């Protein structure tokens, strides 16, 4: 027996390692939508340590890169100037430094201004974050940003740029977070074609492109048509740019709509994490959020975590009271027709007919 183990020791070690990994994989993939959802507690701990190991280097390299660029632009250029003209050296130094600083400030100002304008237009509250790294593999398209739990980030928050949507947060650590790009195969976003109003699910493909799934062939879909978020996935606010239709093909009974993202997903430097969605009318959100995002085959988007009974009760308490639908024909019982109690004087006579003269008159005519 000892001879057997000694002889096949190497192969047995390999088999043991493979068995352990296989069991580990079997345990992990029991969770549906694994790639798009936040990890379980135990797995997240392991990922946390890996990110904690790698991200400090990434931050240092990023800062160093900026420093080297600064040295190149300021020091090397200034050294050339010194050679050309000794007398103007000091003036030129100051001018160039000033110019470089001003240019950098101007660029930053323009960038921040663009972000701010965008923020005011669509989103209630965002946090700006810097991209510090990638997954390093084509197997998964994720990014790492330099903001985390300490900045108020939570899993499933939307990540956007002024150009368009980027993805959503998957695992969030103390000072960093993993962003699942919309080009990942496990990612998904509810979208609507701007002019034809055809709805579908935007998903990533293996080669990093975007495709709207399960759309029935429609001759109205043309290349160049903007694709917007529909808000039905409960992650991305409604109406954000997702991309433009690049090409339309056919796969059996369905149209293959390939979409080019409007955000440059390969070269992201700064992104915005949507902390609160507030620009969309509550009625619209309620209307879209209640309908599940499904394609023609009934495929569901990767949904958020199901609500626990406690969360459902809490949400029910916090939810605004339902508003009555506006009356088609106003009368004295229509909401808003009665003057508010604050304007009434005790003992004074108030003529309701005067409050809604047109309705009463309209009623008499009938």
């Amino acid at each position, binding site marked *: 027996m000892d001879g057997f183990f000694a002889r096949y*020791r*190497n*192969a047995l*070690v*390999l088999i043991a*390692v*493979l068995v352990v*990994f*296989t069991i*580990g*994989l079997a345990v*992990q*993939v029991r969770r549906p939508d*694994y*790639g*798009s959802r936040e990890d379980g507690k135990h*797995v997240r701990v*392991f*990922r946390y*340590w*890996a*990110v904690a*190991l*790698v991200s400090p*280097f*990434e931050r240092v*390299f990023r800062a160093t*890169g900026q420093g080297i660029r600064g040295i190149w632009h300021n020091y090397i250029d200034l050294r050339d100037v010194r050679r050309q003209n000794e007398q103007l050296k000091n003036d030129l130094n100051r001018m160039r430094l000033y110019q470089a600083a001003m240019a950098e400030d101007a660029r930053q100002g323009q960038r921040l201004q663009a972000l701010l304008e965008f923020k005011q237009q669509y989103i209630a509250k965002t946090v700006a974050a810097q*991209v*510090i*790294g*990638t*997954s*390093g*593999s*084509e*197997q*998964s398209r*994720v990014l*790492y940003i330099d903001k985390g739990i300490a900045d108020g980030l939570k899993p499933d928050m939307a990540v956007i740029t002024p150009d368009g949507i980027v993805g959503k947060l*998957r*695992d969030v650590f103390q000072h960093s977070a*993993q962003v*699942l790009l919309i080009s*990942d*195969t*496990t990612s998904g976003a509810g979208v609507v074609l701007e002019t034809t109003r055809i709805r579908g699910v935007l998903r990533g*493909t*293996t*080669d990093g492109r975007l495709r709207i799934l399960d759309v029935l062939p429609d001759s109205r879909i043309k290349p160049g048509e903007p694709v917007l978020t529909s808000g039905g996935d409960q992650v991305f606010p409604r109406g954000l740019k997702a991309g433009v239709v690049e090409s339309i093909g056919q796969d059996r009974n369905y149209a293959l709509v390939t979409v080019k993202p409007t955000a440059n997903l*390969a*070269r992201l430097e700064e992104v915005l994490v949507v902390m609160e969605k507030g620009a969309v009318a509550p009625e619209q959100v309620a209307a879209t959020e209640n309908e599940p995002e499904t394609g023609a085959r009934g495929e569901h988007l990767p949904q958020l975590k199901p609500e626990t009974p406690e969360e459902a009760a809490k949400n029910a308490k916090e939810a605004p009271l339902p508003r009555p639908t506006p009356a088609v024909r106003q009368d004295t019982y229509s909401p808003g027709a009665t003057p508010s109690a604050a304007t009434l004087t005790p003992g004074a006579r108030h003529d309701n007919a005067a409050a809604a003269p047109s309705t009463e008159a309209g009623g008499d005519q009938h």
Partner: protein
Amino acid sequence: MTALGRMYSSRREMDEHVFHPAISLLVPLVAVFAGAYLPKLAPWLMILDLPLVVVIFFSVARRSPISGVMTGALVGVLQDLLLNQPIGINGMVKAVVGYVAASISLRVDVDALATRVVMNFSFCLLQSLMLLGIYQWLLRDANVQTRWLHELLRAGVNTVVAIPLFFLLDYAKQRA
């Protein structure tokens, strides 16, 4: 040669190498870190798989299949931890690559340039093949499509990067 000053019972023992613990720890870490950072500078660098190159190098240099399995498993798991996929996919694949690379190094002169080229190219394709198998048959992932032309390109690029890297890492070798 310092190796001649000692008695070796086989060519395997003479060719076995060890590395300083700092090298064994830092090189895989730097490979994983560079793999995660470089695509940010140039997105096309996503095609590189530096952890794979490092696993092949350490496996053939140490000429121990068990060491190859362990190196591959650990580097693969570290790589998995940065993805959004179940932990262990790259661990499995790189453990097999480490085992096969170390086993081959017992029979073939893996220090020759031609051998290194063939070895790196083949292991890169082997990895793609095993990943496809895991996704399709073990994880039942219907989204996976393999672009073989892209995989050939990836194998070529990784081989081109691996050759100078191997020569560089040769300086870190110490006789066992």
